[in-house]
């Protein structure tokens, strides 16, 4: 397998996530896009550790930790969204601009 394939896939995944993060106006959709970007990072870590001759298990461990962290982050993010929704009855980022300068 060519490393370019993994890296290209990760880039694609990151790009899709970035596009979603910038494009979608719903906080939930943005969180999902963020998860995609995080997944791209995990793919990169796993691919690069196994392809550059290092101990492959190292990258896999990091990827697993990242999955755990992502789960925790999603939980915190979603609870924040619930709190925001309670306060302003919306999770649209365009309406959440009270800290505007």
């Amino acid at each position: 397998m060519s490393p370019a394939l993994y890296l290209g896939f990760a880039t694609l995944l990151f790009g899709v996530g970035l596009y979603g993060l910038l494009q979608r106006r719903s906080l939930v959709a943005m969180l999902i896009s963020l998860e995609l970007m995080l997944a791209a990072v995990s793919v990169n870590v796993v691919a690069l550790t196994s392809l550059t001759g290092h101990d492959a298990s190292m990258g896999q461990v990091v990827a697993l930790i990242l999955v755990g962290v992502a789960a925790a982050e999603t939980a915190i993010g979603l609870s924040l969204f619930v709190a925001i929704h309670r306060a302003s009855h919306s999770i649209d980022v365009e309406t959440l601009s009270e800290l505007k300068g």
Partner: protein
Amino acid sequence: MTGTVLAALAAQAAPLLACALILIFLRGRPRVAAGTAIAALTVSFAAAAFLVWQVAVPNTAAVSQTLWLPVQGGAGLAFGVILDPLAVTMALVVAAITLAVMVYSTGYMRGDPGFARYFGFLALFGWAMLGLVLASNLLQLLVFWELVGLASFLLIGFWFEREAPAAAARKAFLMTRVGDVGFLLGVLLLIRALGVATIPDVLAAATSPAPGFTVPLVAFLLLMGVVGKSAQGPLFTWLPDAMEGPTPVSALLHSATMVAAGVFLVARLHPLFAAAPGVMQGLLWLALVTALASATMAMVANDIKRVLAYSSISQLSYMLMALAAGSVAAGFFHLTTHAGFKALLFLSSGIFIHHAHSNDMREIAGHEPLSQKAGVIGLVAGSLALAGVIPFAGYFSKEMVLGAMGEKVGGVVLALAYLGAGLTAYYTFRMVFLTLRGQTPRRPVARDIAPAAHAAGHEEHFPKAAEAAMAWPVLALAALTLVLGYLGGFFATRLSPALPHEGPFHVGGGALVALALVAAGIALAWYEFGRAGALRLGFAERVPALKSFFGDNWYLDRLYKATVIRWTLALSRAAKWNDHTVLDGASDGVAQGTVWGGRILSMVQNGFVQAYVAVAISVVAALGIWLTRTGGLP
């Protein structure tokens, strides 16, 4: 501490205390305020009389001072009193005139809303002037010199709610300041060069000059202060305007005592000035020109106070001429007699002004005759003294002045000084005849001068008590004009350099010439103003060019307006433009720039989370590209 030092301190402390009490606590209680001020000056007067008895009569001299602020390797700042015949005699003159003027003012200023403030200022002046006279130290003298100027400013502008007195006060302050700059520089130069500030030490050092100490320069700078304060030469035009103040103030400050401070300073530091003969020669000429010029101005003035003001300038010039000719005794003797008779003249003119509600002599003459005889007596006695008629005080002192000049200078200067004496007699009696012999048919008088400076809201008919308060000081001073003249010997033997004195009735050739000139002047005044059917128009007033030249201060004010004042105003305008446009513009620009910068930057914080993310990603991407291209090295 000896009794004399204690008396000197008491003489200064009493008016200061009275001034503080009046201005802080007694502003609303005029009668108590006047009583306090008069009591304080009575203390000063008694103390000064005691000092004259203890110091001047036995002719001793002493300095008593304490070091207040020691300076490493320098003179330090000492405060104290000097007790010699010159100082204590001057102190007695000051205290006596101040006291007389205060008593008079209780009548003249009756009912004025600022009555208490007026007495507070008078007490302030009394303190400052006594401090100046008794100062043992040049720095101390400088402090009181400026305080006297402050008191003058406050009292000229006493009716500050009117435009003319306020302007006159500013003019007086600024013009004397021009001279005071020189005075300050002179004192600083002197102290730096000699390292001492105590007056006897300075005089001792000045006669044996230290290296780097140029006596003529210092003498010239000190004389600048004298010229400003004593209204001489080019800086005299503030004094006629100062007549906008209350008449008793004119009597006290602007003829008898304050303007004599300059003369006093020259007498005080006479050995120093004598060591610069060139400067003294210049002073002699300056004073001579001033004496004649101000006499011509007095010849055409119609305001009685202005006539007296010009004559004050002229007489101050005579004092300075005597000093410049080397005779402290003659100059100081003339100062003393002049203080008496000029205060008398002002106070009696105040009675007329109060009666006729006008300063204009033609209006005073047209008014119903004065029932109060004190004014007439005072005016005539004072005028006889001023003109120098034997046996009034002015005769003796002017004789001494002219005699001293005859010994030292002679020639043209002396002839012109005699001519000035004749002119003095002429304008003095022009004033007397214009004021007293005016019961000719009344015709409307052109009002070319401002109506009398009058106390607002004073009563039309004086209570008897007020009349008496004004009459007694006038009568006392009138009596003094007959007495003071015999004190010439006292001054001649006690002030250095000693003069040979042949007794008061020594009539030499000079005295005969002077008396003849005085008689001629009076006769001319009688012919033009006094006799029945006189035209009441002086020879100088008949020539329009002369009348306007003399009546307008020899166009000096116009000259100043066209030059110095105009330049100053132009400079001020330029400075204002610079301030408003350049400096304010710069700071405004900084403020505006900050505001606009803030607005532009705040647009970045637009509240869209996704925009922030886009920026963050772009920056990271750009950083990443830069890192891969350069390998992290710049």
